[in-house]
């Protein structure tokens, strides 16, 4: 690849963002060199500045951001010095963009084909007829169903995975030299992600397009990129070709990223046959209005055990949690707590029944009242359930903060907005602990967090479980998380339990076909994983349409 010509050269790029009336640095001197036909993976946690750099490669900054230093040269054109009209002439024609959420990035008012044709027409690349014909060809190459017809639908009539492929086709419309992929599969379920990844990789190869592939998922970038650049808080950590980077990372930060998935909880032995489960779901059916969402769901959760409930969006895993908490009374079946049936609605439950089962939410941002200080957020359940007040309340609150490894003096008078994502999630844990419960539902508690932070949360939850003999129900779509924390696994699909059992059995063949599909769809850190998987599926005849 070394003999290929230079396409994009970014030198010493500085970008600032406006916050509280001052300019704060977001990108602090990053270099990036990209040759024709090369795919560069930009990887980093949130706040690394990867999207900002991706947009800057198009000479674009979001409102409230500005490029404050460095140079961006695209095929000999200085994007910083070029006029806005000149930059506009490049965008969509020679440099294209694929956004994270296709559902939000397609204009809901226009048909897909109209949005496809916009760039080719406004850049005078081809006529409407040519563009439409070309669109069908690209839709076919992106393996979209009904390529002749799909363009004439509105965005809301097309599924998320298909939209993402349609957006890639749209980016290809003018056969650009460079495409920026900004987390294109992050919003998708794992089984859908595979198809999109495969389609994107093929089309980029076929047209020999250069690409910048932005993601936080190492395993994904391993499949897509020729070279990987690791970013941290607006600075470059290191860059190398993909295989070297995966095999022998140099910097400590990179090594720690690579090591994240190594945490694994020691599986607890199964509970004895005479032991009553803390929580037990018996033949639960539930519906939202008239639409049924759960069908005959049964599973048990014992003290000191973590049951991971796994499934993709729409599988009913969160609904099961709503049934347990009493937010959604089931249409039939019952929830037992310590062998006793709980009233179906939370309003009918006693204070003590409510206290025993607590919940930790996915989005710590919406789970903590933004107008209350930590003191009140954690102190309220203590006062409410245990009747503590004054000095005793203060002491207990501080004790809880110590338990979640936050310094009480420093944190007790802060507002949630003054905390980082991981700290907020810890406060959510403390609030659940404050009730001194026996059972906690963890609803995707790590999925909004960066991997290193998530790791810390998982370890904390592990420790608290053994310290207080807690039973956990862990809702997640991420099999890596399951591997890390579960004792038992419940796999759900379309409102039904497909398979359940001990974790060690679940990860060993033979699997239920759906479990098999889920397991095999999780990207692995091996650059050959996608090829191998596609080959295997083709051989087995299970390759998705």
């Amino acid at each position, binding site marked *: 690849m070394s003999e290929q010509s230079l396409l994009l050269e970014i030198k010493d790029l500085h970008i600032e963002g406006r916050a509280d009336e001052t300019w704060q640095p977001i990108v602090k001197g990053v270099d990036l060199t990209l040759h024709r036909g090369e795919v560069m993976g930009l990887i980093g946690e949130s706040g690394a500045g990867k999207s900002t750099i991706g947009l800057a490669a198009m000479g674009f900054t979001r*409102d409230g951001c500005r490029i404050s230093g460095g140079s961006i040269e695209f095929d000999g054109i200085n994007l910083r010095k070029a006029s806005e009209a000149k930059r506009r002439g490049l965008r969509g024609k020679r440099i294209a963009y694929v956004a994270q959420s296709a559902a939000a990035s397609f204009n809901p008012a226009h048909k897909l084909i109209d949005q496809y044709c916009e760039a080719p027409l406004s850049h005078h690349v081809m006529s409407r007829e040519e563009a439409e014909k070309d669109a069908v060809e690209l839709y076919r190459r992106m393996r979209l169903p009904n390529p002749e017809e799909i363009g004439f639908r509105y965005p809301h009539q097309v599924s998320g995975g298909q939209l993402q492929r349609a957006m890639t086709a749209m980016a290809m419309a003018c056969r650009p030299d460079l495409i920026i992929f900004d987390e294109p599969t992050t919003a998708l379920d794992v089984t859908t992600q595979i198809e999109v990844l495969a389609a994107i990789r093929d089309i980029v190869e076929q047209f020999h397009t250069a690409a910048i592939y932005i993601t936080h998922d190492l395993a994904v970038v391993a499949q897509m990129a020729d070279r990987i650049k690791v970013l941290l808080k607006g600075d470059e950590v290191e860059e190398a070709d993909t295989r070297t980077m995966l095999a022998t990372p140099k910097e400590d930060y990179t090594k720690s990223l690579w090591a994240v998935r190594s945490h694994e909880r020691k599986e607890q032995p199964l509970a004895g046959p005479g032991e009553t489960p803390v929580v037990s779901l018996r033949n639960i059916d539930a519906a939202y209005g008239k639409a049924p969402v759960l069908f005959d769901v049964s599973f048990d959760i014992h003290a000191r055990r973590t049951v991971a409930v796994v499934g993709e969006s729409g599988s009913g895993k969160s609904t099961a949690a709503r049934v347990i908490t009493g937010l959604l009374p089931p249409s039939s079946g019952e929830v037992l707590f310590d062998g006793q049936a709980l009233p179906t609605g939370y309003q009918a439950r006693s204070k003590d029944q*409510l206290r025993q089962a607590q*919940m930790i939410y996915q*989005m710590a941002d*919406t*789970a903590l009242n*933004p107008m*209350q200080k930590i003191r009140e957020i954690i102190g309220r359940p203590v006062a*409410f359930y245990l009747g503590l007040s004054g000095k005793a309340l203060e002491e207990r609150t501080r004790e809880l903060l110590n338990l979640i490894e936050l310094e009480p003096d420093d944190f007790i008078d802060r507002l949630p907005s003054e905390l980082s994502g991981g700290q907020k999630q810890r406060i959510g844990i403390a609030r659940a602990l404050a009730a001194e419960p026996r059972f906690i539902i963890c609803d995707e508690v790590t999925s909004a967090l960066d991997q290193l932070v998530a790791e810390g949360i998982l370890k904390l939850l592990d420790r608290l479980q053994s310290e207080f003999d807690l039973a956990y129900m862990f809702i997640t779509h991420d099999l890596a998380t399951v591997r890390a924390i579960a004792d038992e696994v419940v796999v759900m699909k379309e409102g039904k339990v497909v398979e359940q059992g001990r974790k060690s059995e679940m990860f060993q063949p033979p699997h239920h076909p759906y479990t098999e599909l889920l397991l095999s769809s999780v990207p692995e850190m091996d650059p050959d994983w996608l090829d191998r998987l596609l080959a295997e599926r083709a051989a087995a005849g299970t390759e998705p349409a």
Partner: protein
Amino acid sequence: MNTQAVGKALRTAPPTAWFGMIVILAYIAVAFLAPVIAPYGEREVVGQQYLPWSAEHILGTDKLGRDMFTRLIYGARNTVGIAFLTTLLAFLLGSILGLLAATTGGKLDQLLSRAVDVIMAIPALILALLLLTIVGTSITNMILVIALIDSTRVFRLARAVAMNIVVMDYIEAARLRGEGMRHLILREILPNAAAPLVAEFGLRFCFVFLSISALSFLGLGIQPPTADWGSMVRENATLITFGEITPLLPAGAIALLTVGVNFVVDWMLHRASGLKE
């Protein structure tokens, strides 16, 4: 918001917001100090009718020979005071019911929302005129009628704001904790709804103020001899066609205060929207 944040907000306030705040403060001062500032009594006949501007009567006299300047000063007390009282009433009624409807949901919400839909399906001024015909025109009746009609608008907003808060996980957490309605509304929802509600109070005040002025102007609101800006315009309107500016002054006084409040509200809403643009 703490004092530091308020200080910072004030320092960065645009000139229009400053203008608005000064205007509002000036009106409040005039309303409280009316007897001190005004040279004559509110209803006192002090000379000939329609006297021109002079040292004795800086703005001349009205059609009954009362001092215009004096009545303008007292108008701040009467017109603004009544409008403020009406807004407060509308606000208490509307926001309490709105928050309650959003938090409780179910039948109560359905009932209140449908009732409000029906009232809002009739234009406000028309409904006010209809109701005033039935109950008769008096200050108390006008206050009650306008407060009732306006509380429906407050209800809509309070309910909408609270609906956005009610779906938050922290509300779910509080419900699952077993918290009562009082705690939910006062401790969990209200602190988060306060900012938009305060801005709405400003907007509602403007609307009520203009409605009351319009009714008084039509002769159906505040009645003479109480000094009131709306009816002052009506009483002396004939002079305008002769090129006299004096009758416009009470109307200008109404406009100036409304402009001031709107400027302040505009700034608050702009700040609340996070200065996105």
